[in-house]
């Protein structure tokens, strides 16, 4: 990756984090899980997901499904930076006048499907990937899940079926931020060795640092190389394998005062705390947060 591109992506990621922090004021949002997937979201929309700007419903577009739907601030913050969504609309968060709330709504242009109930979109994405295969079209289909979300059996059923149908046009990216809602995954329902589990289900697996744009580029190298995308009509039993990217991340990344803290999952901050957190994001003094911790939704 060139330095120029890396610098541009980093600057975008910083602005997305600013949007996220602002959306945690008054009513709150799932800030930790939003901050963990900023680089992932920015990288995918900037470098992997091809869209026809004039037609968001273009059947030849690439699909990104956000299955861990509670990171709406990261998604919509990225949309605002990519020009899909007017940045002013982010301030409509939690108003019944708009459609911006804690989980994605398809009325926001660019949202492929609603989510929030975990473990649904791997299957929906597999359906889209299957149709792309049947039609011989070369759309890239990416679905982002959380790591706690891997508790849901439907994720694993989907992998069995998707591999049976050779859906190598489907990439499942796990935002491996190590947390369920308020508990470390390994303290509740351990996932490791996670890569081995996915391999045992027949997938091709890569594990990267999810905050490193260079590693994200490498992980998606084969996805974005056109000749590697097979678009044949043969599907069942073709041997194609679902791609898995395990992106190791830090929940709350960018804000040391909340990073990797179990009780900072869903947060509602005051205007003053938001101002302090924006300072903290830019490397200044760490914020003194007094708002209630452990608001379990």
């Amino acid at each position, binding site marked *: 990756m060139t330095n120029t591109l890396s610098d541009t992506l980093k600057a975008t990621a910083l602005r997305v984090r600013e949007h996220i922090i602002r959306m945690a004021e008054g009513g709150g949002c799932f800030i930790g899980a939003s901050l963990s997937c900023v680089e992932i979201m920015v990288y995918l929309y900037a470098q992997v997901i091809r869209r026809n700007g004039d037609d968001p419903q273009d059947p030849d577009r690439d699909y990104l499904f956000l299955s861990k739907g509670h990171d709406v601030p990261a998604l919509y913050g990225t949309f605002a930076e990519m020009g899909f969504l007017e940045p002013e609309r982010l301030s409509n968060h*939690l*108003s*019944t006048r708009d459609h911006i709330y804690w989980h994605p709504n398809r009325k926001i242009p660019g949202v492929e499907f609603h*989510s929030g*109930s975990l473990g649904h979109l791997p299957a929906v994405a597999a359906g889209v990937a299957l149709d792309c295969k049947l039609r011989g079209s070369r759309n890239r289909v990416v679905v982002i899940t959380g790591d706690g979300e891997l508790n849901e*059996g439907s994720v694993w059923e989907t992998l069995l079926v998707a591999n049976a149908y050779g859906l190598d046009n489907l990439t499942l990216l796990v935002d491996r931020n190590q947390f369920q809602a308020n508990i470390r995954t390994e303290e509740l329902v351990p996932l490791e060795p996670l890569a081995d589990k996915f391999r045992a289900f027949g997938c091709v697996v890569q594990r990267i640092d999810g905050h490193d744009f260079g590693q994200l580029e490498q992980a998606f190298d084969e996805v974005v190389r056109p000749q590697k995308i097979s678009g044949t009509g043969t599907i069942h039993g073709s041997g194609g394998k679902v791609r898995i990217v395990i992106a190791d991340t830090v929940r709350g990344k960018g804000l040391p005062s909340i990073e990797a803290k179990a009780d900072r999952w869903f947060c509602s901050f005051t205007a003053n705390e938001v101002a302090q957190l924006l300072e903290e994001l830019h490397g200044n003094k760490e914020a003194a947060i007094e708002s209630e911790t452990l608001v*379990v939704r």
Partner: protein
Amino acid sequence: MTYEELLIQTALKDERIIVMTAENRALVRNAPRQLGNRFIDTGITEQTMVGMAAGLALRGRIPIVHALAPFLTMRAFEFIRTDVGIGHLPVKLSGYIPGFLSDGNGPTHQSIEDVAIMRGIPGMEVYCPADEDDLVRILPAVWASTAPAYVRINHKKGSYEHAPFVPGKAEVIARGKDVTLLVYGFLFENALQAKGLLEKEGLSVGLVNMRSLKPVDEDAIAEAASGSGLLVTIEDHLRTGGLYSIVAEVLLRHRELSAEVLPLALEERWFRPGVLGEVLETEGFTAAKIAERIKNSNLLYAE
């Protein structure tokens, strides 16, 4: 007393009780420390949790299981119906943030079908407490029974001190000649205030806290129908299969009664998400909006 205090107190007294959650700990934060091995968190696995609860019940346990109401009643539906329902096992389902209480979460988290589908399971009981005080009065009987039960958990503080719970009976707050409000769950408080607003207009207003939707108190409904000019069903649930449907079923069984019924419910759509106060305003369920909708219904003095 809070829900959690009652839960832990009950579990400590009764070794049969196992407290389970599909990683929703909002209501059971202290249970792991207090209950040790009898607290089981299965992770985000609603159907597996319910299946395991059935297995525990087969061994004589009384599992009290927790998850957000939509995922508990809908993700695990067939496990509830097939394992708990057909088995008629004493599994107690605690559904969190039902109805409007999911405020800003959006349609995925809106449990506004739960009464319809849970009461459709043979043998399943359905309880909808008005507030925390009502909740802790209802639960001991629910947990002591051998029947499977679904509780729409509502732990909001209310202003009303409720009467003791009698299984199968509604709580008749007041009788009224002009109109009787039939309500359950979280909207009780707003209905209570709406009653006051309507009384200021000179109306005689009855109010019934339904409490138990299955078994339902048919006598309370029949009595309101014969004593009031108008029945109003108030619910944060789809009109299909909820209290309006229940009242319709009761009135069809009592053909001698001919009551006008105004349903205040969600009609064929999920509600607009947002902060709770704004949701109630938008959807017409503040006390003022409830009173206004009743006054504007043209059914009030229909003879």
